[in-house]
């Protein structure tokens, strides 16, 4: 098992190199001059020149890449061109917001999606099945940026139920420990802040979770149906097992494996979807930040954020893979 994980981790090295080259190259290809965007339109040519030298922008690309990677390995992701702050700091202040949002969305998606999928499969062709699968179909077709706006329009503008933006109301105070506000408010027993941060995360969480929820529901259903068609289910029935045992024990454990893989993939979607959701709901996370950094050609930030997101994404998939194999006794590692 350990060997397997190590082997898989080693396999990631070429992927990471590729990802870093791609991230690096993409950004260098963007037209425009970062020195200019940093100094603004009132800068003189001389100022621009000296800044370019300072940022090593005049070096050949491979040299730039090599020195970048050297720093990355040392754990130094450089400084933001725009803010002059260390990229690690910039990202680490925003990452918890994104992760909290993504996890919240993912948990909603898994809980609702898996349940709906199981019930739909077990009660195939029932009204519940039709209803939830129609819902899921709408879900996968949903432009989430529109859904977000509609939610704001309905729940904030019209009904005044939920706040339209941010993580916490301005006056609410919360002692941060993990920087996951929901967790922190529980840890500090601050129920007011808990209610407040829950109110803030509901809309973006649901908007972001809609598509994964729909995908998970559909996947669970079809995976369950496939499993329910298999011989060993017939065996379980022939043994006279109660129906709930057949479905929740025999079928689910088998059907959940492919769903697990899908869940892993959804995490990547969530990180991407965060760009749109965070923009709409003014969520102070990395999604919005990286988007803005791309536009302002903040090289070090974009490179590193993309690298970090890719690493997270790949690791999550690795974990689901390992879980998959852990749950499936047929697969051995050696």
């Amino acid at each position: 098992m350990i060997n397997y994980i190590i082997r898989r981790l080693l396999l990631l090295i070429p992927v990471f190199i590729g990802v870093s080259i791609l991230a690096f190259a993409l950004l260098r290809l963007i037209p425009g001059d970062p020195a200019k965007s940093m100094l603004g339109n009132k800068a003189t040519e001389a100022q621009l020149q000296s800044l370019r030298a300072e940022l090593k922008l005049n070096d050949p690309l491979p040299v730039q890449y090599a020195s970048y990677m050297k720093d990355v390995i040392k754990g130094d992701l450089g400084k933001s061109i725009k803010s002059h702050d260390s990229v690690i700091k910039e990202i680490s202040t925003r990452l918890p917001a994104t992760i909290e949002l993504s996890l919240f969305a993912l948990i909603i998606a898994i809980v609702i999606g898996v349940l709906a999928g199981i019930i739909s499969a077990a009660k195939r062709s029932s009204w519940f099945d039709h209803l939830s699968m129609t819902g899921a179909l709408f879900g996968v077709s949903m432009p989430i940026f529109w859904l977000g706006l509609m939610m704001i329009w309905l729940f904030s503008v019209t009904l005044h139920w939920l706040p339209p933006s941010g993580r916490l109301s301005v006056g609410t105070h919360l002692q941060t420990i993990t920087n996951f506000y929901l967790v922190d408010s529980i840890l500090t027993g601050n129920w007011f802040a808990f209610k407040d941060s829950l109110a803030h995360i509901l809309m973006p969480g649901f908007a972001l979770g809609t598509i994964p929820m729909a995908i998970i529901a559909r996947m669970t259903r079809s995976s369950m149906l496939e499993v329910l068609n298999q011989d060993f289910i017939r065996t379980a029935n022939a043994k006279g097992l109660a129906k709930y045992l057949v479905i929740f024990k025999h079928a689910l454990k088998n059907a959940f494996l492919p769903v697990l893989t899908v869940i892993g993939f959804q995490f990547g979607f969530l990180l991407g979807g965060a760009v749109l959701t965070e923009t709409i709901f003014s969520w102070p996370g990395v999604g919005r930040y990286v988007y803005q950094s791309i536009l302002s050609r903040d090289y070090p930030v974009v490179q590193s954020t993309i690298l970090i997101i890719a690493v997270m994404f790949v690791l999550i998939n690795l974990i689901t893979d390992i879980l998959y194999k852990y749950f499936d006794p047929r697969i051995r590692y050696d």
Partner: protein
Amino acid sequence: GGGDAANQDNGNNTAAGDSSANKGSSDSSSDKTIIFGRGADSVQLDPSKVTDGESIYVTNQIYDTLVRYKQENTEVQPALATDWKTSDDGKVWTFHLKKDVKFHDGTDFNADAVVYNFKRWTTSADFVYYGYMFGASKDNMKGIIQNVEATDDDTVKFTLSEPNAPFLQTLAMPPFGIASPTAVKKYGDDYFKNPVGTGPFVFDSWDKDDKIVLHKNKDYFGQVADADQVIFRVIPDNGARFMELQAGTINMMDGMNPEDMQKVKDDNNLQIVNRPSMNVGYMAMNTSKKGPMANTKVRQAINMAIDKKKLMTLYQGIGQEAKNPMPPSLWGYNDEIKDYSYNVDQAKKLLAEAGYGKGFTMNLYTMTNPRPYMPQPKLTAEAIQQMLKDVNIKVNIVENDWDTHLTKTEEGAHDAALMGWTGDNGDPDNFLYVLLDKDNAKKGSAGNIAFYKNDQVHKLLKKAQITMDQGTRTDIYKQVQEIIHDDAPWVPIAYTTPPMAISKTISGYVPHATGSEPFNYIKFK
């Protein structure tokens, strides 16, 4: 506003723990907190290094400059300097400083601190405004300020290489706020997030992309603020920000969607305060490009083909049709000039005379981001596109984010471009010379993106720069405006009074024409 889920009684709940207490902040539960909602975060809180308004807005609360603009106009009044005098040749300036002023870190403000700051600004190209305003370059990092010296504890002497009419005006600009030398040395590269000045508010904490918290400087040498705390909150979406204001979770905001103006007027708890106009929004035509844009008649025709009255619908009452390259709030504005009137037939005739009766195709560069002088650049471009279609000019819109837009237009990639300018220091030179002199029409770093080169204009502007008498300068600038009107390198579009929506619970807020102002005058009801 409606009953938002946000707290009404947060005062009882914050006792549990205050995260912003790391700098010994005051009790955040005070009612007298200004919560200012805005679209973007500050970049750095070292004003000498930044160019963006969002940074300046905050630093203006923390720092003082030697001299300061008056609250309601751009006249200069004493601040850290109590009085000053200039030599006859205009080259030597001597400032007497206020005594017993302390930086927020408890160190003394004195002449050495001033000298330290000015010296610091000559050490790197990062100090953008210094370079720009005082003409510093790689070979001459000092620019026109030959020397700064402390003649005694409270006196500073500046020696310039040539007389500079706007010098005093320039020193009042927020980028030249005086920082604590001790703090600068202590924090080094991280100084920008640990700002220490002498201003009415003291820096507390900064959560990137979320909020910046300041608290009142009880020992301020000027008017001590009524507000105990100022929080700058980032809410990027204009609509969302407005909803927060409606809900009462913020009490001031800028950057409203013009569409929401009516909502403010309908809301009993809200009011609109307009920032006095010191800007101009315009469409520059690239006169250096061969083809129609080089032809004065074509440019005049385009001026006639654009219906400014209609464009003003996009400004929702905060804009005034423009006819000159500088706003009427500035001295030297030439009000005698008669604007080209909207006349499609006349425009077509002119085009025919210029040989473009059948029309032509041109690109129009525009920015995505709203600017104070152009709240809806995209729509403005689209509207112009429609209007020019009537005179057979086909317009392709090229939309870029602000940075790219600047780069592209400075390189002269455009046939025409939407642009605008907010004055820095209330001097006409800051408009006319910067935006329309041939000195600034260099490809790659042009402020003059019409690439308008008129030798007579150049001569006049140069003369105005070294003339110290305002009456003479006024005449010169009026003359320049006339020439420019005839040559029509621009279509001036609007002077705006950018709206701020604020809660009626605060009063005494007077927005300043330069775009930012300290909040110590704000009172709570």
